[in-house]
């Protein structure tokens, strides 16, 4: 995914649009939203005015011209970084929107069907969708079953089943019905469908600053005020020093020089890149096919330290699989396998199918003709809690049953059979291991046990270990009994588990964790998950889930992949890291800029008869001339913004390591690097400038 996106990072079209947008963003009403860059813009205007005033008075200053140009470039570069992030978001939004333009809907008006534009549908309208129709807006299936192609929003080509009632009733506007016919009740007002909201968010037009972004903006403004004071008071100290060195006041610092110093000191780098970082965080989430309903949610994702994960689908493959047959005494394994396979032949549950597959794999027992066997199947019901087959022979009826140990025990005992202790032991042992034992009986005889096992997903254990390293606690939630749950929890390596969990239990657990100061993330799909999703700090609803669940969560996973929670947390962390790293870099940069500018402006002070004053020793970079030193610092300050745009968009490299390891690494690169880089950069620019001159 990463590489695909990177290649489009500097897509020509986006670049062109972004360049145009950076000019539009010069509008003061837009600029003022970014106080740091706003200060630079005011500086640019002042410098430009002074430049032209000079020209009209007949003395053109090439130095002022260059300063003015580079100050404007600084503003434009900052605008450009935001524009390009928005452009990339827009590109994604456009491709989403293509599916929706001019779509027609078949609205059901009483008994009549009328054709209206999809955009005219109101909440509560009922529409008909048949094979080939696009679903016009978000809604809920109220009648029928259909397979729906949701690739337009999920990118997943396999169609999904949508049916009325239950947890799979929600449909999304823009998706396509492939087979059958459904009636859909529209659940959103025009313009606020899921897709609409999603597109708005991606475009970033209505983007609101997130809490941490606001706090950071305050910090940057505060630092700017400090530096503004330091620079504004400098002419007074300078004037004092001039008179002390017997120099005329006319040599006091010029406004362009002061502005250059100010712009170099205020945190323009992070100020210019801050919103690009925020927008691209949202973008990266969408690359993972997750949509957040607010930027705040992404930030919270970085803070999550407890994850509630459903066992089924997240930790285990979802279905229990038969892994081996354990025959009772006096029964051959083949006989057990044969009976088990027979009883499962028309059992369409995944468990049943896995028994057929296992019998075929181990003993090459093939499917048989059901009619020839004269068999009638007994399906699983909630009352009997077992399934099986009745084989009619001329003499009698052979009954084969499979089910949980207690029901089969009753079954054989009712047939005057005997339930061996050894089978009971086997059943207990398997349950202790976290497996599901399925006992098979033929009339009054126990044949043995089928070992059904929850298969833990490959690599999930390592994933949890990584999360632990990052300080995130994982809690497995399951309806299984505590024994089974403990065994799977141990195998998967989660930190804690909740067995026999009801939705109320989940909600209570989330509240408890939050009361202890934890931030909780969870993923869910059913309507009964909705309260917990709403309560969690990060609630990710699966797109296949009910409308209630989707409304309750603050993120929606279009892929409906329960492990996605982990990626979401990573995106959140990466966003915060990028912000912190670039802030550190920006502040660390100031050291070098001081050593470029202060000696340059103070070179003449206390010089006496010599040309160069004592403060020239501070020129440790040995820059060519005072003017080239100031110019180099300003140029470096502008260029560094554009150089860091790719990093702001991609985010700093993220690895699942402990806080200390991450901090050490980022500090080394962005803290120490931030101090050293400008020394090298400014020196290089100075050499180049002096070559030209």
């Amino acid at each position: 995914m990463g590489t695909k996106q990177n290649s489009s990072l500097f897509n020509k079209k986006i670049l062109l649009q972004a360049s145009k947008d950076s000019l539009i963003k010069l509008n003061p009403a837009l600029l003022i939203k970014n106080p740091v860059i706003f200060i630079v813009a005011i500086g640019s205007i002042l410098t430009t005015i002074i430049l032209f005033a000079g020209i009209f008075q007949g003395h053109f200053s090439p130095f002022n011209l260059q300063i003015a140009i580079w100050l404007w470039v600084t503003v434009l570069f900052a605008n450009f970084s935001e524009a390009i992030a928005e452009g990339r978001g827009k590109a994604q939004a456009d491709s989403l929107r293509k599916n929706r333009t001019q779509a027609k809907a078949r609205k059901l008006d009483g008994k009549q069907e009328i054709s209206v534009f999809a955009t005219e549908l109101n909440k509560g309208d009922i529409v008909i969708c048949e094979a080939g129709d696009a679903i016009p807006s978000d809604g809920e299936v109220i009648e029928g079953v259909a397979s729906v192609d949701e690739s337009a929003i999920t990118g997943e080509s396999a169609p999904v089943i949508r049916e009325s009632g239950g947890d799979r009733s929600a449909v999304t506007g823009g998706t396509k019905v492939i087979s059958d016919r459904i009636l859909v009740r529209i659940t959103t007002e025009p313009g606020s469908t899921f897709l609409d909201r999603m597109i708005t968010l991606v475009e970033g037009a209505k983007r609101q600053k997130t809490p941490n972004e606001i706090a950071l903006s305050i910090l940057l403004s505060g630092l700017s005020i400090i530096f503004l004071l330091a620079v504004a008071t400098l002419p007074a100290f300078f004037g004092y020093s001039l008179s002390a060195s017997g120099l005329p006041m006319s040599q006091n610092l010029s406004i362009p020089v002061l502005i250059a110093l100010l712009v170099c000191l205020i945190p323009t780098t992070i100020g210019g890149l801050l919103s690009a970082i925020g927008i691209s965080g949202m973008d990266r989430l969408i690359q993972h096919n997750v949509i957040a309903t607010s930027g705040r949610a992404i930030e919270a994702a970085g803070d999550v330290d407890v994850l509630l994960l459903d066992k089924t689908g997240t930790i285990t493959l979802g279905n229990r699989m038969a892994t081996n047959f354990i025959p009772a005494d006096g029964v051959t394994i083949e006989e057990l396998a044969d009976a088990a396979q027979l009883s499962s032949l028309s059992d369409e549950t995944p468990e049943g199918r896995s028994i057929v597959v296992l019998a075929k794999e181990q003993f090459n027992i093939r499917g048989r003709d059901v009619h020839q066997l004269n068999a009638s199947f007994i399906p699983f019901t909630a009352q009997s809690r077992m399934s099986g087959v009745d084989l009619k022979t001329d003499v009698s009826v052979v009954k084969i049953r499979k089910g949980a140990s207690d029901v089969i025990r009753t079954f054989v005992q009712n047939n005057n059979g005997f339930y061996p202790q050894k089978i009971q032991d086997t059943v207990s042992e398997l349950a202790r291991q976290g497996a599901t034992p399925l006992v098979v009986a033929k009339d009054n005889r126990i044949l043995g046990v089928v070992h059904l096992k929850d298969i833990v997903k490959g690599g999930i254990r390592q994933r949890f270990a990584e999360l632990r390293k990052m300080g995130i606690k994982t809690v497995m939630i399951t309806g299984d009994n505590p024994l089974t749950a403990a065994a799977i929890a141990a195998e998967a390596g989660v930190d804690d588990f909740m067995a026999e969990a009801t939705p109320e239990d989940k909600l209570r657990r989330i509240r408890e964790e939050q009361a202890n100061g934890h931030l909780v993330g969870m993923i869910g799909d059913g309507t009964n998950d909705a309260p917990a999703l709403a309560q969690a700090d990060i609630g990710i609803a699966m797109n296949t889930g009910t409308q209630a669940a989707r409304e309750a969560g603050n993120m929606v996973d279009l892929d409906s992949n329960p492990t996605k929670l982990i990626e979401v947390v990573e995106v959140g962390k990466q966003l915060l890291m990028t912000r912190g790293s670039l802030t550190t870099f920006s502040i660390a940069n100031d050291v070098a800029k001081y050593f470029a500018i202060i000696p340059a402006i103070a070179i003449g002070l206390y010089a006496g008869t010599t040309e160069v004053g004592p403060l020239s020793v501070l020129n440790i970079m040995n820059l060519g001339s005072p003017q080239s030193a100031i110019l180099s610092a300003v140029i470096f300050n502008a260029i560094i913004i554009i150089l860091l745009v790719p990093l702001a968009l991609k985010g700093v490299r993220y690895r699942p390591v402990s806080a200390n390891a991450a901090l050490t690494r980022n500090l080394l690169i962005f803290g120490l690097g931030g101090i050293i880089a400008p020394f090298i950069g400014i020196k290089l620019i100075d050499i180049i400038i002096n070559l030209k001159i």
Partner: protein
Amino acid sequence: MTVQDVIQVILFFALLIGLTPILGNYMYKVFTGNKHIMLPLFGWLEKITYKLTGVNSDEETNWKSYTFGLLMFNLVGLVFVFLIQVIQVYLPLNPAHLPNVSWHSAFNTSVSFMTNTNWQGYAGETTLSYFVQMVGLTVQNFVSAATGIAVLIALIKGISRKTTDKLGNFWVDLTRSTLYVLLPLSILFAIVLVGQGVIQNFKTYETVQTLQGTQQVIPMGPAASQIAIKQLGTNGGGFFNANSSHPLENPTPFSNFLEMLAILLIPAALTYTYGKMVGSIRQGWTIFTAMLILLVIGLSISLYAEYSSNPIFGHLPLMEGKETRFGITNSVLWSTSTSAASNGSVNAMHDSLSPIAGMVAMVNIMLGEIIFGGVGAGLYGMLIFIILTVFIAGLMVGRTPEYLGKKIEAFEVQMALVAILAPNIIILLFSAWASVCTSGLSSLNNSGSHGLSEILYAYASAAGNNGSAFAGLNANTVFYNLTIGFGMLIGRFGVIIPVMAIAGSMAKKKITPPSSGTFHTDNWLFIGLLIAIILIVGGLTHFPALSLGPIAEHLLLNLKI
């Protein structure tokens, strides 16, 4: 440096480190209401105080009431000290018949003692009566220090409590820090000082015949009691104008050693109290270590500068402005400690320090008086920088910033910036003003870069509530009395109010339990980060002015100009 010098410096720090947990643990008991050794002695006094003032010691208040009480208390103190100065002629204990103090000087002095600054625009023995010194200044010496501790205690409660708006009771914290911390320590210390020869009497000034045959007036007075609290409470206002270089204030090498130690004692010990109160002694030691490192860096630079030869005079130690009794090491150790700790007492003239050692003292103040700093004030100032550091660097671990489980959000950042900005605004704006206007420049005794240093030092000292001076500046003028007076007010309450607001906001938050994903604030990495943020933020603000002041002066000195 001689071997004795080295041993003495080592002994100084060893004692400081050794006494920190002892006094820190004691103060922990005092402020958490536990049993401690002073209860049997002074417990009754605490109860009587509450009874007389009608304070309900069990009642806890939110940050606004706490702050309101604090401000009112300080305002009353300010007005009282002002009034007794302008009418001291009519008051008792004025054997030298000193006249009433001018309104601007009285304003400056009352602000100065109320804000724990103890900037002295006047000369103690020739301006103020014994009555004013004792009833006005010495009382403020106690309560201004106690106010600083109270603010700190409220902030610690804000950090360590969760989901509450109660920060304790200002009157209780004020009474306890005065009765159980400042008073017993001062009594003990005053007795030791009297033993060393510091005077404590109400005699009229004595006239003596000197060896040269001339007559000299020797001022008398209750010096020991004021000196004890001036050192312990990071006040710094001397009984005599010459402060601790005066033989009657600081007679022996031993008194000198103890007076230096007293400067840092309580601020250092409060870091331990902090650690205990937030439930992690390690957190306290981390802050202590960061402070100690900054102090040692400053001391080393100063010692190096002072022991280097003066290029103009050749290979002589720089003894101008120093007491030969104390020598260079003791003078520099004092100048570094007093500027770091917002004390402001001196045993040598900072004006005569080498430019670099003078700059170190100035930088110590400009960084915000957080290297141990004033009692209470130093640690709450440091906690502001910690909040800033946590906010900037905390993001780099991939979580929104938190300190000891408390989220640092927009409000805390905003208040922290106000607290950092307030003193810096004073230093920059007032110094700039003074360096261009005639009323500012006419007070200068020195021209050139050194004159600029004198101005910068004066306002830094005011804004940092330090109180020491580059004595070359005649500050007893309307201009300086007023600007410095306002500078001290803003430097004090421009920090206290946002700190209290942070305390209130932090108390309401939940505490996130630490995990391996938490940004750790108790290790060497954090110490390094904190120091870097302090130096970069503080340094970048003042580097331009410093380069035109002391740095230029140092360079000029080396060029023999």
